[in-house]
């Protein structure tokens, strides 16, 4: 459903992309032991989740692309780009697919997205290193993603509670 004036949608996209970019930088500051340099926890999914609910999958995809490119160009490298793009996109796809299911709240959607994010990152690592052994990392990365997914949903809901009305007014549409 694409109501709401084009310019305002673009402006909102830009805002959310900027937040996603900032989150991406923030999480690179957290010293969490990931299997390979360039892998991330997935905090930027807060913004992706917000974009999915506020705007839709298409714009959300563009934003994931933007923040991954910016982030990798400015303080990462090609490996980080591969990891974050794979992780971000798969997380987005999973979250978009799951969000309409009635039995799920943002928590379930987010945990699924976080799990997808980590699976995608490990898949990229296994592919580039050609070592199938790296899949074993998921044995502890996936439980971690349950925690991070839950935290991401918490932050998203907090933001959504406060921003839903202004976003609706901005877009002139009844967002869900």
């Amino acid at each position: 459903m694409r109501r709401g004036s084009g310019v305002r949608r673009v402006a909102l996209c830009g805002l959310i992309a900027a937040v996603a970019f900032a989150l991406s930088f923030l999480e690179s500051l957290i010293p969490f032991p990931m299997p390979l340099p360039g892998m991330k926890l997935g905090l930027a999914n807060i913004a992706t989740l917000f974009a999915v609910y506020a705007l839709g999958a298409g714009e959300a995809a563009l934003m994931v692309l933007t923040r991954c490119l910016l982030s990798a160009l400015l303080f990462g490298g090609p490996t980080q780009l591969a990891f974050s793009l794979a992780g971000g996109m798969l997380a987005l796809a999973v979250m978009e697919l799951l969000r309409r299911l009635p039995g799920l709240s943002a928590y379930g959607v987010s945990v699924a997205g976080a799990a997808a994010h980590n699976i995608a990152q490990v898949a990229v690592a296994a592919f580039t290193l050609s070592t199938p052994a790296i899949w074993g990392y998921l044995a502890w990365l996936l439980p971690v993603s349950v925690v991070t997914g839950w935290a991401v949903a918490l932050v998203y809901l907090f933001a959504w509670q406060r921003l839903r009305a202004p976003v609706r007014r901005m877009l002139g549409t009844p967002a869900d």
Partner: protein
Amino acid sequence: MRRGDYLVMAIVLALALAFGLGAFLSIGEDAEKTLVIRVNGEEQQRLLLLPGAPMEQIVVESQGFHLTIELQDGQARVAQADCPDGVCVHAGWISRPGAVAVCVPARVSIAVEGGGPAPDVVLQ
């Protein structure tokens, strides 16, 4: 939190268990380490890395560059290369499963594979 959320979490944790089991079961299958030499992403050679093995030299030519790869005593290295950056040579001896030395200009990589359980990260 709705009922479906718990289901999602349970599924993710079950997956974690599955991957853990898979990793556990595949230990010891490849008791021997192999060095895999790849040119342009395609596997060119597979050589066993055996402890105590004498020096073996392989010359690889790619993109106009010459690399000399040495295997000895369970480890391998790019001993010599005429590529512009020399990152591959600088990597030195590799022996741990998963370790790689890559020459980007020549599009050559050497990787240690197999070898069963080994420390994943060594903090210094």
